[in-house]
């Protein structure tokens, strides 16, 4: 039954794309406020996976508690990075030279994180134990792995939480306002530096949560960050840079294209996805869904 297999593959792809799109949403949020591309996002992804793994296997905490703890720890680390490492005038910058400096700094930070993890955990892959083993049959012949289903539902809840945060809290509305008009927001008394710290923290928390969730389905190793980073760029570009809920749509498109590609051309699927995305970036740099979804 090719069609049933294809649908299974499609479902898995959608769930994977949904969870992966959390990374892209974080990247988008950071770009919206700080106007910088966070090249260390992959590092926060692996950091999340390894933190969650350590909490579960060394302290024997339950999965959800570990994920929450991971998110908290990453938030503190990320906000600290912006506060202590970035020069104060580069926290929010539109100047190309400043943006380049920040990108290079973050790449160096990612290198440090990668090798700290390599030193601590060794080169082999680790996996967060999954709490729902096995798979369920939705229709005859159509399967989905339980853990993947759980993970994608958790991701949807995280998106919901982000939406509520941005829409109904004072801080969230501040971020919203700052992303729309920086000068006016600063004139109204919002501090760009403080918002940059918070936004970077939230964005990186998204990456680390995605890492923790995906590490319970697949596995993670210290150099995985570099292969996830381009995928995050793909999703961001599909959804439009600076557009958080566009990333959700971008993640779904990525999941569908990637899984269909895997089904027909196997490993070359990743090459195809990257090439398609490269083309989109050249034709429409603001992203495929640039104008469709409300911009944040």
């Amino acid at each position: 039954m090719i069609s049933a297999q294809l649908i299974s593959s499609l479902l898995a792809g959608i769930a994977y794309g949904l969870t992966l799109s959390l990374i892209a949403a974080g990247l988008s949020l950071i770009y919206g406020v700080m106007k910088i591309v966070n090249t260390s996002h992959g590092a926060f992804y692996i950091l999340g996976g390894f933190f969650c793994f350590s909490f579960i296997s060394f302290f024997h905490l339950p999965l959800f508690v570990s994920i929450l703890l991971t998110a908290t720890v990453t938030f503190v680390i990320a906000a600290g990075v912006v506060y202590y490492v970035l020069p104060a005038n580069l926290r929010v910058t539109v100047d190309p030279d400043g943006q380049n400096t920040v990108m290079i700094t973050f790449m160096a930070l990612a290198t440090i994180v990668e090798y700290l993890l390599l030193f601590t955990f060794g080169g082999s892959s680790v996996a967060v134990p999954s709490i729902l083993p096995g798979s369920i049959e939705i229709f005859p012949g159509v399967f989905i792995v339980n853990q993947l289903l759980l993970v994608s539902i958790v991701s949807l809840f995280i998106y919901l939480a982000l939406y509520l945060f941005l829409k109904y809290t004072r801080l969230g509305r501040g971020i919203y306002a700052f992303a729309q008009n920086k000068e006016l927001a600063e004139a109204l008394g919002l501090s760009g530096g403080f918002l940059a710290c918070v936004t970077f923290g939230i964005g990186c928390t998204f990456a680390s949560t995605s890492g923790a969730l995906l590490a319970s389905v697949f596995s993670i190793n210290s150099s995985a960050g570099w292969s996830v980073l381009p995928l995050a760029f793909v999703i961001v570009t599909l959804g439009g840079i600076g557009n958080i809920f566009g990333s959700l749509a971008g993640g779904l498109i990525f999941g569908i294209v990637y899984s269909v590609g895997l089904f027909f051309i196997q490993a070359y699927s990743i090459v195809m996805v990257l090439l398609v995305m490269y083309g989109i970036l050249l034709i429409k740099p603001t992203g495929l869904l640039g104008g469709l979804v409300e911009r944040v």
Partner: protein
Amino acid sequence: MSVFEELKQHIERGKVSFSLISILFVLFVIAFFTGFSYLCYTFMYLISYLVLSASWYLLYSYSGQLSLGHALPFGVGAFSLMIFLSRLNFHPIIALILAPLVAAAVGGTVGLTTIRLRPAYQGIALLIASQVAFWISLLQVGEEGISLGVQILAGGHIYGIILLISLICMLSIFFVENSKIGLKLKAIKEDGLASQSLGINVTYYKILIFFASSFFAGLGGTSFALYTSHADYTIFSIPNSFLPIAMVVVGGSGELTGCILGSVIISILMRYLPIKIGLPWTYIIYGFLVVLVLKIYPAGLLGAIKRALTKKPEGG
């Protein structure tokens, strides 16, 4: 103006970088005759990445284009050399001439398509392009890559060829930056719109510098492949794209001297520290070095040295 006068002027303009190139060259030659083989290997590594970082520097400092995927032309140069030598059985000299040209064609064409993007987007597009090459090479030749089964050239010959490549490359970059083209490119970097209104063909020069930079990166890749006699998919990885950037940033992105300084420091770090303290700590130190230099001396170590030197007369 005669050629010699022009040469003299060039040398006067960039005295420091010219003398640094000569000092390096003399050091390399001495290393060969003293017969420290590990030192020679370090120098070959240094030369490959020096050429790569100089090509990145040429692109970044002379047209403001940020390439986060400069491993693409580097790796294409290395891979095409290996394919020409081991699969197609070309004569080594022809392969050596063709490989950087292939790299220039590939890297330049990719760059050509990204010319009109803004720096951050351009960086991402080039990073994605290098990742495409990463996956294609991994899927086509596998994890073991392509190796030269038999040593085609003797070790001494390889060292000589690499030395020649680096000298040609560094001198040409040196002349480009001290020529009229260099001035035009600097103008484009500072203000693209203003230089266009003064009659400089911005697009043409941006494309030209991209092809030139890819050619030099390809030369670097060729020498890298020559001395390791091996090329595999890791050559296209993002850390490999980041290495030349780190070298230029640590040394100082304003001058070729800074680029040379940075590549010497980082190459020595990368080749000698792993013996003493292991690979992870080497990379951690390397990362901290880049972060600290960017935070404390945004103009690079060269900028810091210059500031210290110019301060002295004022104080005393």
